[in-house]
Each structure stands twice: as C-alpha cells, then as structure tokens.
C-alpha cells in the first residue's frame, strides 16, 4: 500500500486530494443546478456522490451535503428536466432492487436468478386492485375497483408480505441445493411466475394476460394525488433510504454474520449452531420483500404493468449491477445500479443521439445498419467483460466493517490502534 504518497500542498491543512474532491462535489452540484439539460453535468452530479462517499470526512459533514444534493438540487434541476428525474427515479428503483438482491446473493451467498419474480408479484398485487381488473373476480357489494390511491401505502406492506411469502415458497425446495443448481431453480421459478402471469387471463381473468394492466391508480396522501415525477422521485428516495438502513443494520447484526458465515463455509457455520434453514429462508424472504415493495412503487409510477417487464433478462441485469458495483456491499450495489442505468439510459443513448444527429445534419454519413442506437447491448456487453477482467471485485469492493456505533465505542479508548487495525483489515 502506497500510504506515504506526498501531498501536493503539504503546507496546507487539508490534503490536496480532499480539497479537489470537495471542489468537484460542490462544482458538480452547482453546475447541474445551472445546466439541468447538460448530460455531462448530470453525470458529474451523480459521480459527485461517489466522490463524496470516498472522501474521508465526518458523516456529520457528508450527510447534510448528500441530503442537500438529493432533496434540493436534484428536484430543482429535475423540474427543469423531467427526463433526468425519470432516469434518477428509475435508477432508484434498481438501486433498491440491487440492495435487496445483494442480501440474497452478496450477504448469504445464494445465487438467485429469478429475483424479478418477487418484483413482479409486488407490482401485480397492487395493479390488480388499483385497476378495474379485480372486479372480474371479486364481487362484494362493498368492494369498488380501482381502490383509492390511499391504499397505495397499505399495499406497500401487502406487496412486501406477498413477495416474502413467495420467497419462502421458493426457499423450501432450494434449501438442499447449492451454487449452480440453485441458480437454475431460481431461474425456473422466475420464469414460472412470469408465464403464469402471462396466462392467467383465462379461465378467470386475473392478470389480464399479455395485455397488461392499465391505468393504475396513482398513490394519494391526505387527499393529494401523487402522480408527478417529483412525487415518485421522493417516494423512491424514501424507500431506498429505508432499504439501505435496514440492509446495513442487518449486515452488521447477528443475522448478517450468520449469513456471511453460511456463505463462507456452510458446514462450519452449522456446527457453530447457525440454523441453516431459518437463515436461508430469512435471506430469501427479506430480499424478496424489498422487491415486492419496489414492485408496488414501480406499478404506480409506470401506470402500466405487463409480464414483459419481468423477464429473465431483468433478473440478470440486477445481478450484473451488484457484481459490477461490488458484491456483498450495500454501497457497491447502489453504485452498480446507478452506473448500469445511467449507462443504458444516458451515456449510450446520448452517444447514439449524438451520432444520429451528426448524420442527420449531414456531417457524418452513417449507414443505417451501424446506427449506434441498435448496439447498446453490444457496448454494454463489452463493458461487462472489461469490468470483469480489469476490476472483478467491482467498483466498490466489499470490506468487512463493524457496526458504526461499535467503532465509536471502541475509539473512545484506543483510537489510533483501531484505525490501524481497520486499515490492515481493509488492505
């Protein structure tokens, strides 16, 4: 470790790298606020969160900055440019999904390739009742469909419960399986759910089959209907915040340790008294419940769901996010999800548009066969390969850490020692 790299300005109080980092963070925020239509400002704005995360500063300084950026600058810029708000909201949904899947794959080491099934179950449970669809098979005089937007909130809980139930259902048969067998069974489970959703329009029309369900009732709060992009942005933001807190707390708890132990050595974990069945089911259920809640939000935001949003590729995409970001690490899952979504929705599209515009203006003549818009997947594939080869531990590799409050307690006594210990552990 090249610890003793000289600072550029050794005389100054703050190391140059940190100073630059802060200049970048604030610069990006201001720039994005001033130029909400600039793609580069937008990407820099997103990158500023990564820089902020990496900057060594007290949480007391970092958190307010992050909050200001997320709750003030992003919404203000987003009002100017709803597309970026949409991108961020979409990325946010994937962040939540990635953090949820990370519990199953990263924490507990269970390769789940059918994660999207839980997302689908959440989305459908809300959609069926928040459209006129439920009237097809529920005939109570007091039941009126679509249900009012107020029901969105209880349905977040129902979505979680239903998804958790599915998680446990899936968990039972796969308990005895390991590694790749688990992968194929979860894959099969995901496909089963999707096909069933696609076909349950007869004999009784429950899901409306491939036609999908629309228009889905928007959430309402105290009589306000929340159907603006900004509303969904904040709903997703709060959801992510809660999910991250829960995931982080679990990670450093006895349950998180049991998962990690199971992942590292299943047999040794059992002989230490870690109940395998319970812990695996718990991982499946908790991971699934996050997806269920996000499904409800997705359905409300999209106002339309159909089975094609829940394909196997979607599961693979989320898996790629956590691996790109850094497996087993909540921050990694966040970074992975944001970079994949931004890459797909922003960078590649922008590139295509730019080249398309060049050819439209006659500057460059690109034959339609090699229109870059068609080859987004190819570029994405290439990036996946390069990432795997050159940075296989992900953008933010996982580190073992203790619960933050525990570190605070310890540092009271032997501050210096601990820091060295932590550094050693991270190296």
């Amino acid at each position, binding site marked *: 470790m*090249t610890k003793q790299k000289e600072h550029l300005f050794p005389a100054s109080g703050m190391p140059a*790298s940190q100073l630059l980092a802060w200049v970048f963070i604030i610069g990006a925020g201001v720039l994005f606020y001033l130029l909400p*239509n600039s793609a580069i400002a937008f990407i820099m704005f997103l990158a500023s969160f990564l820089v902020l995360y990496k900057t060594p500063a007290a949480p007391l300084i970092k958190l307010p900055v992050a909050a200001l950026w997320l709750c003030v600058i992003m919404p203000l810029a987003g009002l100017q440019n709803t*597309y970026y708000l949409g991108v961020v909201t979409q990325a946010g949904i994937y962040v939540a999904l990635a953090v949820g899947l990370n519990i199953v794959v990263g924490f507990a080491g269970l390769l789940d390739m059918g994660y999207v099934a839980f997302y689908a179950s959440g989305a459908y449970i809300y959609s069926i009742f928040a459209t006129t669809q439920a009237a097809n098979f529920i005939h109570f005089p007091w039941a009126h469909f679509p249900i009012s937007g107020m029901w969105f909130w209880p349905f977040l809980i129902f979505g979680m419960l239903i998804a958790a139930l599915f998680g446990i259902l899936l968990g039972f048969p796969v308990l005895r399986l390991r590694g790749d067998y688990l992968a194929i069974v979860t894959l099969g489970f995901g496909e089963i759910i999707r096909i069933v959703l696609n076909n349950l329009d007869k004999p009784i029309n429950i899901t409306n089959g491939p036609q999908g369900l629309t228009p889905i009732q928007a959430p309402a709060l105290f009589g306000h209907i929340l159907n603006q992009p900004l509303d969904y942005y904040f709903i997703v933001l709060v959801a992510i915040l809660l999910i991250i807190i829960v995931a982080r707390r679990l990670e450093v708890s006895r349950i998180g340790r049991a998962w990690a132990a199971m992942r590292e050595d299943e047999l040794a974990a059992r002989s230490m008294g870690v109940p395998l069945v319970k812990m695996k089911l718990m991982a499946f259920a908790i991971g699934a419940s996050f997806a269920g809640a996000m499904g409800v939000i997705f359905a409300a935001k999209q106002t*339309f769901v159909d089975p094609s*949003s829940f394909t196997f590729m979607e599961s693979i995409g989320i898996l790629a996010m956590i691996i790109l970001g850094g497996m087993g690490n909540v921050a990694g899952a966040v970074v992975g999800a944001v970079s994949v979504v931004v890459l797909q929705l922003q960078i590649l599209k922008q590139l295509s548009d730019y080249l398309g515009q060049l050819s439209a203006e006659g500057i460059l003549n690109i034959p339609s066969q090699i229109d870059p818009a*068609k080859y987004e997947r190819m570029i994405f594939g290439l990036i996946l390969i390069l990432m795997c080869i050159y940075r296989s531990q992900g953008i933010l590799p996982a580190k073992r850490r203790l619960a933050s409050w525990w570190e605070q307690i310890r540092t009271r006594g032997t501050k210096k020692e601990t820091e060295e210990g932590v550094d050693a552990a991270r190296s």
Partner: protein
Amino acid sequence: MQLRCKSLTFFLMAALVLVVVGLVVTGCAPKANVIKVATVTPLSGSQAAVGESIKLGAQIAVEEQKDAFTKLGFALQLDPQDDQADPKVGVDVAQKLIADKEVLGVDGHYNSGVAIPASEVYKTDNLTEVSPANTNPKVTDRKYLDVNRICARDDEQGPFGADYAFNTLKAKNIYIVDDKTTYGAGVAQQFEARAKADGATILGHDGITAGETDFSAVLDKAGSAKPDLLYFGGMFPEGSLLLKQMRDKGINATFMGADGMDDPQMAKIAGNDVIGAYYTTAAGDINSTPEGKAWADKYTKEFNQQPGAYAVYGYDSMNVLLDGIKKAIADNGGKAPSRLQVSQAVRATKDFQGISSKVTFDDKGDNLYAMLFMKEYKTADYPPAVIQSGTAGQYLQK
C-alpha cells in the same frame, strides 16, 4: 487507496474543467430554430426489422420536407429512438423526448404494449403521437388528445378476418394460436369473439412463446382436432415457421394470420408453403397505385432493401405529423408552436392524402379512412394479392 482516490479526483477535475470550457463554447454558439420529430420503434431486438423500416419511411418524409421547413425558418431534424419493443424502455424514451423541448411530435410506436404506457408520459405535456402500426383498441380508447393512429384497430381487424374465414372461406371449425403478446393475444381474442358470434366452432386456443422455433407440440394438438382453418395472432417469424411446420406435418387446414405476418420475410421463410395462406392487414399494397410504386422504388433505391409493409405507414404518419406542425406554425404566426397547438392541429387533420390511405382523425384519434385488406399468397412472392378490402370502421364490434 489514497492514491486511487486522488487519481480519481484528478481525473474528475480534469473532466470538470474540460466540460465547463465545452459548455461555455457551445452555449455561446447561436442556435437555429430547431424542430425535432422523433420516431420511436424497436431498432434492436427481434422486431428490429419492422422498426427499422418504419424509421426509414419516416426518414424519407423528413428529408422531403426539410426544405419546406427551412423556408419557414426552422431546421427540421429527425430524432430516431429505439424502444426495444420493451414497455419500460418505451417509457424512458418517452420521458427523454418530453424533456427535449425541441421535439414536437412522435411517429410511433410499433408495439401497442409499448405505446400504451408511453402515451401516459406524452400526455403530461401533450406531445402528439401518430402511430403507424398500433392496432390495439386501448391505444385510442382512452381518448387522449395527443394519441392518433392512421391504421385500423384490432377489434376491426380480428372481426374482418373472422367474417372472411366464416362467410367466404366457409371455415366452420377453427383452431386459434397466439403468441401471448399484447398484440398477438389481443387480435386473436377479437377474432375468436367474432368467429363464435358468426357461428363457427372454436376447437382450441393455445399459446406459444415468441422467440421459439419448435411448434410441434401445439401443432400435434391442433392437427388432431382437424380444423378447417388455423388462425395465428402474432408476428411473422413465429407465424411463418408455424405455417411451414404445419404443412410438414401434413395439416392441410387453411392458415390465416393478422398484420404481424405482413413482411417480405414471411414468404422467404415458409417458401412454397406460403401459397394459399391468408392474412389481414391494415397496410394495403403500395404497388397497386402509381404513387405507391414510385415511393417503393425510391425507398428501395435509397436503402437498398424492399420496404416492409409498415414503412409507408411510417412515412404517412410522419407526413401527417409534419403537416400538423406546419399548420400549427401558420396558426401561431410563423413562430414555433407549442406542443398543445401541434396536438390540436394534428387531431384536426382532415382528408390528408397519404400514400397508403386518406387520413381523417375522429375524436379518439382513429383514422376514419383506415382500410383493412385481406391478402392471399397466390404465389410465394411478397407482397401477396389483395383479395378483399374494406373500410375498417364497418367491422367495429359494438
């Protein structure tokens, strides 16, 4: 660790400086009055071929109209977008277009399943949409001001096919297969309802998976039911294979499909088996009129490939759109119109003569002159002959 952090920061700083310089430079350059029109179709994935042909059709229209717009003081640009035939991507693209204030109209989408959620986004800023190919009833049944289509609806197309099958082909026993997509299942359902109402017996209704190539299971089952006619709701790659495998199995039932079959590939894939197959389509034979033929020649010359059935619809939709924009500019005193003004002008389109058909929108955005055509392959050459046609509206189920 520190090293990496530092190099990252340096990298980002350098980027920041470059960007600021770049923005200042480009920000100062005077910009012409740009009007963008978008096409949103699948340009990647298995339906890319159709999406591509719509885009190219629209591209011809934009190129033809460029000069007219320049005279009005506007630079007209085409903004081709890819929705990957995926509703989620479609919504993202819609949001992107909404955010780009220079975009005044959308020629798209191809898939109804994508168009329906995307139009919820267009609605938020009245960005007008003229669809060349969305046949699902729900697209216009929501009566959005900004959603229009120039083609016929599934609840016209399905019954049109059913009536023809029952009355003209005298098919009493019918087997239905669909591909379990929004489009395929939708049109098959409409066909089934009318066929039943006409008095035909539906022997069975099964689904296949789009993207698969082996349909022996469904054909074994269908074949044993001995139908007079097999109706397929879906796209040509599956449809043509279904037809071919059906004949391989010695099932002699008449084959009928919907407009998803309308593609030059169909005859290539199915070969001689395609002879005697029927399909309904909202797209007429462009070669039947001199203008159409001239247009098809132009397309072929420009892009070195034959136009797909919906290429001309992409062209017509774009022209309807551009026509609306021109009117809106005129109404707005030569200034750039708002999206709402464009939407209103497009909806007011009356007796616009396109290559494929005349266009007049009703209050929902459906084209009153939308036509339906029954085509039969007499030889294994595309396009097949039109054997019956009619205005779509008369087949609409009440």
